């Protein structure tokens, strides 16, 4: 009887997990199926151009380079902003803050992590856009930098909470040994505690970035939606996710434009997949020791 029950549970679990795998595979195949005809006509080489003008009356162009650079620019800047802020905040909360401060800060960080991205996007529209505009004296505050600030805001809570976990689980015996040798509190933090928590910190960063790389709504709202190839943070850009979100609703089914959007989605999927594998690796190393 017991055995039979166990078997049923196992079977149920197997069913559930294979269903989810099946769904992921289905999505993947659907993407490929919708994207594939584009490879024959007009051909994959047309994706490599630097002009994204899928609805042009003169000549349709499907160069995804501006979208790729747009995503890259926004994500890279977000990463550069989010890492130091997130890690330093995590160090502060776990090593320096008084218990009373910690009691306030930790739930606040969790609240921030739970905010829907549209809310953060709206916040960006109201706060960051005018701020960027006036600080840099621009004609519009809808820039790559604005998007990066927003994405950083979304990545930071993830980075803080996982890093904080990793840092505060460093055994206090290490810190005591360091202090007893005459190291200062800061030396102990940067030479003992942070290195001991490093793989957890790396995992938090990969997960934080993983969270924002697929982020759509917030960036769509504040980056200005101009598909240009640029590395200037103070210009408007357009990311891959924003492009799909903005154009998929209006595109003619089966058109070149429609299929090009599926290629964008495929490439995005590939990048996210690769990042997730990296995050998993970093996390499992962190769990092992």
């Amino acid at each position, binding site marked *: 009887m017991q055995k039979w029950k166990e078997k049923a549970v196992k079977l149920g679990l197997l069913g559930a997990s294979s269903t989810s795998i099946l769904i992921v595979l289905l999505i993947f195949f659907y993407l490929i199926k919708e994207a594939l005809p584009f490879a024959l006509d007009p051909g994959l080489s047309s994706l490599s151009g630097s002009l994204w003008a899928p609805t042009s009356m003169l000549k349709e162009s499907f160069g995804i380079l501006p979208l790729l650079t747009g995503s890259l620019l926004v994500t890279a800047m977000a990463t550069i902003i989010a890492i130091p802020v997130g890690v330093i905040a995590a160090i502060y909360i776990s090593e320096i803050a008084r218990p009373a401060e910690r009691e306030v800060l930790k739930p606040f960080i969790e609240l921030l992590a739970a905010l829907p991205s549209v809310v953060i996007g709206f916040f960006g529209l109201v706060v960051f856009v005018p701020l960027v505009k006036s600080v840099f004296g621009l004609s519009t505050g809808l820039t790559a930098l604005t998007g990066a600030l927003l994405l950083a805001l979304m990545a930071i809570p993830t980075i803080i909470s996982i890093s904080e976990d990793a840092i505060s689980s460093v055994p206090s015996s290490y810190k005591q*040994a360091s202090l*007893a040798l005459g190291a200062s509190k800061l030396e102990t933090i940067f030479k003992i505690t942070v*290195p001991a928590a490093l793989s957890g910190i790396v995992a938090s960063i990969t997960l934080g970035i993983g969270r924002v790389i697929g982020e759509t709504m917030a960036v769509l709202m504040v980056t200005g939606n101009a598909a240009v190839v640029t590395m200037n943070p103070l210009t408007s850009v357009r990311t891959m996710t924003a492009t799909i979100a903005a154009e998929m609703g209006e595109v003619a089914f089966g058109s070149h434009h429609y299929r090009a959007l599926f290629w964008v989605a495929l490439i995005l999927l590939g990048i996210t997949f690769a990042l997730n594998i990296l995050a998993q690796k970093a996390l499992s190393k962190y769990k092992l020791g």
Partner: protein
Amino acid sequence: MVMIGNQTPPQIDEPEIEIDVQNLDFYYGKHQALHDICMSVPKGMVTALIGPSGCGKSTFLRTLNRMNDIIGGTRVEGKIVIQSKDIYAPNIDVVMLRKRVGMVFQKPNPFPKSIFENVAYGPRIHGIKNRAQLQEIVERSLVRAAIWDEVKDRLHISGLELSGGQQQRLCIARALAVDPDILLMDEPASALDPRSTQRIEDLIAELRGDYTIVIVTHNMQQAARVSDYTAFFYEGHLIEFGKTERIFTKPNNKQTEDYITGRFG
């Protein structure tokens, strides 16, 4: 004894004092853990702190390098004079104090770093950057801690890969690397097997003379074997302090006698 005038004649075997504790009280918040401790720890000798669990041995040990400072809400009254300086005076540099007063913990706690980096950590903190000099210090400290022969071919492996006994000797090497005068040990062998314990005791005998050692132990035989002086603590009070030989043969105090004969604790 013949008295000259009303002065005590200078005694030949009067030891030089390294740590002079005067009327020390210690509080964890409202809880007073040490009461009016007065004790002179002789230089170059091994002093054992014994007493039942919870009597304040570790607390007392940690007042000597101010490791209690890192626990919130603690308070010290009285004086501890080390090398003629009151270590709780406001102008004292805790970094320099801890450089002079090394500590070995109950549970071996090497850093999750290589053996080399474990030992080099202290000297680096205190400003030594030259690689050759660091190498020399690491070797000397590991030799001194009687672990060099076991690790000399694998200084790059993690300190955590060593056995418990080796880890503890590595921790002793790490403490010696900053060239302290005093070594505090809080039950350094209590987590180790008998053979490793033996090696630690041999090592203490080796270090005796060059370092002033204060060791907490709950093991009476160990105190008798390794120490020159013994302090018996009970409920936060220093009940009796004197030459180990005398404490173990002719204790002045009834409580001391009861404790060392195993009647309680």
